[in-house]
């Protein structure tokens, strides 16, 4: 299997993707939406949208601090302004409303969201905890599910590799959001965190499918050697050791080949549903669909081209170390 043969190259690519993603995330930064940063977001849709300069002139007279006014279309294609400000009090909101809805513009407030800074902070905190908790739970579960497999590598190795692959799967869509945020001003909101958590839960499936096959093939291709050992004190005990008819790398290679089609097809069906959501769904869930799609693709890629080579690399490294 070429993936195993050139495993070092694929591992380097995988690590490269992660480094580039991290570079993008920390270099460009994520733009926090009001869910996290606190503030107000007002969407006003118009029959005749007034000129931006006029609205801004009006807003400048109010003591709002920094704000951003953006032209956009709403779900039904009407012209709208999106106004982002700091969190507004009741009276401030009223004066802002009066400013943006000018006479004859036929404006209505179609969406208004205001989040206090405390709530935003709290949500950030919760998001970090949730992502950490999901990762931890997955390692533990995989380690337990693979408990029967002790040889040639222990069950916790499968868990650890799965989580490394997951880190890859989460970094890619996050980097995508950083890029979109930098160039198009796309903001990170609660939906983004939900998408990331869903990516965590879902993209692990592909890795499991391959590792499940590895687990099965290990049993299929290994030979058991039983030997009676005389332990001190005159007790005899039976010691079981294993050996393979094939190198471990080849076994993982066979497992990838066996499961390649199903890895691709399961990701494909999920991807198809997400493409439909992206193109035909409402604007509010567009970025959600995009993040998930990026995560699903990254997940399919990482299970085949990253997790599996890493498993072989680790097993061979361990063997070399034991020989020394």
């Amino acid at each position, binding site marked *: 299997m070429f993936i195993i043969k050139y495993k070092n190259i694929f591992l380097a690519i995988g690590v490269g993707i992660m480094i580039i993603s991290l570079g993008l995330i920390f270099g460009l930064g994520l733009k926090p939406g009001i869910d996290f940063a606190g503030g107000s977001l007002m*969407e006003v849709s118009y029959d005749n949208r007034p000129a931006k300069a006029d609205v801004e002139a009006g807003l400048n007279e109010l003591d709002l601090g920094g704000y951003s006014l953006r032209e956009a279309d*709403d*779900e039904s294609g009407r012209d709208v302004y999106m106004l982002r400000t700091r969190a507004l009090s*009741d009276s401030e*909101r009223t004066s802002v409303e009066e400013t943006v809805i000018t006479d004859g513009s036929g404006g*209505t*407030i*179609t*969406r*208004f*969201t*205001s*989040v*206090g800074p405390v*709530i935003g902070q*709290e949500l950030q*905190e919760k*998001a970090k*905890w*949730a992502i950490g*908790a*999901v990762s931890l*739970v*997955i390692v533990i*579960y*995989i380690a337990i*599910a693979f408990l029967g497999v002790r040889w040639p590598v222990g069950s916790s190795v499968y868990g650890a590799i799965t989580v490394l692959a997951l880190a890859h799967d989460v970094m890619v869509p996050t980097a995508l959001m950083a890029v979109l945020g930098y160039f198009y001003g796309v903001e990170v909101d*609660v*939906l983004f*965190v*939900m998408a990331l*958590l*869903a990516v*965590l*839960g*879902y993209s692990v*499936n592909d890795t*499991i*499918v391959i590792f*499940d096959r590895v687990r099965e093939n290990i049993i299929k291709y290994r030979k058991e050697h039983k030997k009676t050992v005389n332990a001190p004190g005159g007790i005899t005990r039976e010691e079981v050791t294993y050996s393979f008819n094939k190198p471990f790398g080849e076994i993982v290679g066979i497992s990838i080949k*066996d*499961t390649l089609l*199903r890895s691709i*097809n*399961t990701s494909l*069906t*999920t991807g*198809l*549903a*997400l493409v*439909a*959501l992206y*193109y*035909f*769904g*409402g*604007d*509010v*869930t567009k970025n*959600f669909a995009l993040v998930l799609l990026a995560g699903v693709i990254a997940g399919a890629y990482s299970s085949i081209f990253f997790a599996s080579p890493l498993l072989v690399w680790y097993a061979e490294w361990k063997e070399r170390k034991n020989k020394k």
Partner: protein
Amino acid sequence: MATETGGNMIVRLFYALLTLAIAASVAFFVYQNVVTPDSKYPFKLGLDLSGGSHLVYEADTSEVNPEEVDELMNVLRVVIERRVNIFGVSEPIVQVESSSVVSDEQKERLVVELPGVTDVKEAVAEIGRTPLLEFKLIDEEALLEAVAMESISIEGATVTPSEGSADPYTDTGLTGRYLQSAQLQFAGTGGAGGLSNEPIVAITWNAEGAALFEEITANNTGKRLAIFLDGEEISSPRINERISGGQAVISGGFTPEEARDLVQNLNFGALPVPIELVSTQTIGAALGGEVLEKGMMAGVIGFAFVMAFMLLWYRLPGLVAVVALLSYVVVMLALFQLIPVVLTAAGLAGFILTIGMAVDANVLVFERMKEELRDGKGSREAAIVGFKRAWSAIRDGNVTSLLSAIILFWFGTSMVKGFALVFGIGVIVSMLSALLVTRTLLVALPDRKRDEGVVGRLYESGLGK
């Protein structure tokens, strides 16, 4: 369910038909609930799809004994609920939400959802108008001092009040939370028949309040007790004697209208703790409808994509998977109606995601089945062995998805919870649909080897013949 490869064909067919019949009746149930106007189980739409306002208040519980917080928040909820009900919103939701387990300081919040109300200003005003009633004892000396200060400063000099000057008002702990009812009365009507016909507000305390009031009046006879409404002193009668029986009277030079409003406000609830609006979300009904329509469209198209792929790639088993996916969709819709799950834009997106995920188990089984067919097994045996072999991967994959759904739910604000719930239920139902529907139908299909005629070829997959 038949598990042997031999077995009775009639029994298999019976189970297959039974499965289809159950799925069809679930579909009929869902359809009935949609077309019947006053159905008992309609779809519940979240505010972001139906339009409305979502308000989050934070309660200031810093002055309250921690043990009483839960009870007070419950009282607050009841009071606000009563308030909200006055302005005739259909199905408002008022619920207490404690801030997360993870933050250092526990914050108590009240979430108010008002479907159809897009004028938040009015709603906020209505909710905010609820009075906060407090009773405070007056320290006459400190009061005199404070008044003196004020008169000096009025005369023109800038005077900074001396550091030591005490707050003339001391909290008694007696607040509107102990109120049982308030009544409008006119001074003089009940008693001596004096000329004054001043409107007064008579308060009846609950048992706890009555005891507290009696204690306060007993210990402070001769002092004055100030009555504050929303932080403003409205009257300060002198305590002439110990008052038992749980009655008090507020007279503050009200006009009859003022007194009547006050009584109404008090009866509809004096707030037990002060609250502050910390987050608002309003979505216009037209916009919500648009999002819903597009979401349903995306769902139908996503379903069609997945269906087309499964049919083209997996042929006969693909058809079985499509039937299983259909039953997955109707069971999910029925659960949305029955539980009920409040559908939000995020929940809808989650549902569409699970449509793509739901066939995954089928894919795993069909691929396994193909391996067995290649080994020369008949299609029925291949299906049964395929299920057995694919089970561990299906189980592990679904368990991890389910675990993340549970953590999402725990993490959740109401919006996240909606998604997590749909995602979690989706994982369970899709697993069941693969194990029950796909399996039952597959074993009821004619048993062929892979090179046995046209039907045999239908078990193949992909682009080959």
